[in-house]
C-alpha cells in the first residue's frame, strides 16, 4: 500500500560496510584516486596560481623572459636560495672591493612588491628622473607613495576601484537575492500545481537563457534610455535578476520536485495554511537547493561583462568591464590587473566554500528520482 521506502532529500546516507570496500586493494584504489585528484587540482589551479604570483611582481618582472615563478623577500624568506654568487670566467666567485661575493638573482626568482595593490587603489602619473630624485628625498611621502616612487611614479589621487567594487557588491548581491526569491516562488508553483501550458512556460523560461546578450542589448538600451535608468543600479539589478531567473526556476523546481508532497499535505491536515506550510515545511527542506542556486546566480551576476559594458558608463559600472579596460601608459599593467582579479575572485570563493556542503545535493534539475 504505502511506498516501500520514503526517503526525503535530507535523509542521511547510510555508510555500508561491504567487504569489498574495506579490502586492502580497495583502500589502495582510494589512495591512488586521492593522488590523481591532487594532480588534477594542481593542473587546474596553475593559471590561478600564476595570477596570484603576478599580483606581487614589479612591472618588468611580470613580463620577464624566462617567466619568473619563485617569490622572495630581499633579506628575508627564500633570499638565501634566490641570491647566488656571481662567478668569474674561471669558476671562482666574483668578489667586490670589500672582498664580499657579488650576488645576483636567479632567473626564476622575483622580489615581492606591493606595486600592484598600490597601483590598483591609486591613480598614478609618471615623473621625470629629476623629479623622482627630488621626491625620493622628501620626507612627506608615506609607504604607499614610496613603493611607486621607486618606479618613477607619483600618486595623484584615489582610483575608481573601490567604487566599481561597491557597485559589483550591490548589483550582484541584490540581484542574486531577488532571482532566488522570485525563482523559488515560481518554482514552487510549477512544482506543486498543474498549471495550464506548464511545459511551454518552462521552455519559455529556459529560452530566455538562449538569447545572445547582444540581441537584447539594443532594445534594452533603447528602453532604458526612455525610462531614464541607463547606467543606474536599479536597471542593472533588474536585468541580472531576469537573466538569472531561468536558471533559478529550473534548478529550484528540480529540487522541489524531490521533496515529497506528503510533507506539506500532512502539515495542511495539521491545520497549517498553505503559506505556513510553504514557510515552515518546504523552505527548510529546500535550504540545500536554495544554497546551490544562490552560488550559481551569484557567479553569473558577479562576473557578467557584456551587459555591464553596454548598459553602464560610470555610475553603475561593475568590476569586469573595469578590469578589462585597465591599461597603463605604454603596455598592460599586469600586476594591477592581476590584483584586481584576485580581490574580485575572493568573495565568490568564500561564499562557494561556505556553501559547498549544499552544492552537490542542490543541483539535481529534478533528474534524480527516488
Amino acid at each position, binding site marked *: 500500500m504505502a511506498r516501500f521506502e520514503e526517503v526525503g532529500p535530507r535523509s542521511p546516507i547510510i555508510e555500508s560496510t561491504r567487504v*569489498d570496500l574495506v579490502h586492502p586493494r580497495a583502500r589502495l584504489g582510494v589512495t591512488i584516486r586521492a593522488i590523481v585528484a591532487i594532480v588534477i587540482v594542481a593542473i587546474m589551479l596553475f593559471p590561478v596560481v600564476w595570477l596570484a604570483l603576478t599580483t606581487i611582481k614589479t612591472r618588468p618582472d611580470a613580463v620577464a623572459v624566462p617567466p619568473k615563478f619563485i617569490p622572495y623577500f630581499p633579506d628575508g624568506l627564500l633570499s638565501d636560495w634566490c641570491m647566488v654568487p656571481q662567478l668569474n670566467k674561471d669558476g671562482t666567485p666574483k668578489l667586490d672591493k670589500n672582498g664580499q661575493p657579488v650576488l645576483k638573482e636567479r632567473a626564476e626568482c622575483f622580489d615581492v612588491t606591493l606595486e600592484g595593490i598600490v597601483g590598483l587603489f591609486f591613480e598614478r602619473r609618471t615623473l621625470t628622473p629629476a623629479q623622482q630624485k627630488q621626491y625620493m628625498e622628501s620626507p612627506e611621502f608615506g609607504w604607499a607613495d614610496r613603493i611607486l616612487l621607486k618606479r618613477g611614479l607619483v600618486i595623484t589621487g584615489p582610483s575608481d576601484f573601490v567604487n566599481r567594487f561597491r557597485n559589483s557588491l550591490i548589483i550582484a548581491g541584490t540581484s542574486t537575492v531577488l532571482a532566488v526569491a522570485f525563482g523559488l516562488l515560481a518554482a514552487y508553483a510549477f512544482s506543486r500545481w498543474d498549471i495550464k501550458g506548464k511545459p511551454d512556460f518552462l521552455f519559455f523560461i529556459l529560452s530566455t537563457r538562449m538569447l545572445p546578450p547582444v540581441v537584447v542589448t539594443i532594445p534594452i538600451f533603447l528602453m532604458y534610455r526612455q525610462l531614464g535608468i541607463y547606467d543606474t543600479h536599479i536597471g542593472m539589478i533588474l536585468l541580472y535578476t531576469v537573466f538569472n531567473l531561468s536558471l533559478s526556476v529550473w534548478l529550484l523546481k528540480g529540487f522541489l520536485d524531490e521533496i515529497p508532497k506528503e510533507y506539506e499535505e500532512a502539515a495542511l491536515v495539521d491545520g497549517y*495554511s498553505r503559506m505556513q506550510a510553504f514557510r515552515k515545511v518546504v523552505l527548510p527542506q529546500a535550504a540545500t537547493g536554495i544554497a546551490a542556486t544562490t552560488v550559481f546566480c551569484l557567479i553569473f551576476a558577479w562576473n557578467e561583462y557584456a551587459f555591464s559594458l553596454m548598459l553602464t558608463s560610470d555610475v553603475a559600472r561593475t568590476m569586469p568591464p573595469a578590469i578589462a579596460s585597465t591599461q597603463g601608459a605604454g603596455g598592460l599593467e599586469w600586476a594591477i590587473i592581476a590584483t584586481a582579479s584576485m580581490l574580485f575572485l575572493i568573495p565568490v570563493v568564500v561564499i562557494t566554500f561556505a556553501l559547498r556542503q549544499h552544492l552537490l545535493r542542490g543541483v539535481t534539475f529534478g533528474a534524480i528520482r527516488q
Partner: protein
Amino acid sequence: MTATTALQAEKVAQRRQVRRISDKTIQTAFILPTMMLLILWNIFPLFYSLYLSFTEYSVITGTPPRWVGFENYRNILSDPLIWKYFALTGRFALLSVGLQTIIGFVMAMIVRAKFRGSGFITTLILIPMMLSPVVVGKFWAMIYNPTFGPLNYLLGMPPPRGPDWLANPQFALWAVVLVDVWMWSPFVMLLCLSGLKAIPEYLYEAAAIDRASAWFQFWRITLPQVAPLLMIAILFRTIEAFKQFDVVMGLTGGGPGDATELVAVKLYRIAFLGRFDTGIASAFAYIVLIIIVAISNLYIRYLNRLRGEA
C-alpha cells in the same frame, strides 16, 4: 494511505479556503513576479528586435527605421562567410562541449570516492568557473604569450622556439577550446557528482553479490543513472558555447584573420562596430536564436525520453 492523506488534505484545504488565501491566488502571486520580469525584459526586447530585423536601421544615426522586408535575412543567408562562421561555431561547440563532458565526467569519477579532504579538493577544482570570463580571456592570453608566457616555458619551448598559439590560424581555435574546457569542465563535474551521489548504494551491493565486473557496473549502473544530469550539463554548455563571446574577445578578438570568428563575435561586430547595422544584426541574431532553440528542443526531447525510461 498516501491517497487518503491527500484526500483529507484537499478537504481540509477546501474548508479553509473560506478564511484563508486560496491556492489559486497563491499560484498567481507566486508566478506573477517572474512572469512580469520575463515579459518586460525578454518579450519586449524580442519583439522589438524582430521588428528591427525587417528594417534598415542604425542606432547611431538619428534616422528612424526603414521597412525593408526580408532583405536583411536574404543578405545574411546568401553570404557564404556567415555559413563559415556557423560551421566554425558548430565545430567549437562540438569540440569544447565534448571535451568538457569527458573531462568533467572523469574528474567526477575520481573525486567521487570519499577520502580525507575530498570535499575541499572538489571545491578547489570549481575555482576556474568562478572567475570572470573576461579576466580568464585576458590572463590566458598572457599565459599563451610566446615570449613571456609560462605555457611555452613549461612545455620546454623557450622563445623563439615555441609557437604563438593565438596568432597561428591552425592553433587559435584549439587555444580557445582549451580555455573554455579549463573553465567549464568543473561545471560538468559538479553536475555529474550530484548524479553519482544519488545512485542508491544497494544497486552496487546487488552487483557485487552477483560478482559483476567493474566494467559491467560502470556501463549498467553508473552511466545510465548519471545520464540525465549529464544531458542537462551538455544542454547548458551547448547553449553557452553558441553564445561564447567574452573569452574569445579577451583571447583573440576573433582573429587571426577570422580563425576564431564565432557567431556571437560576428554579431557584436555587426551591431557595435563599423556601421552599427542594427537591422542586419537583429536578423542575424534571430537566425542564431532559432538554431539554439532547435538544438535545445532536440536535447530536451531526448532528456525527457531518458527520464521516462529511468
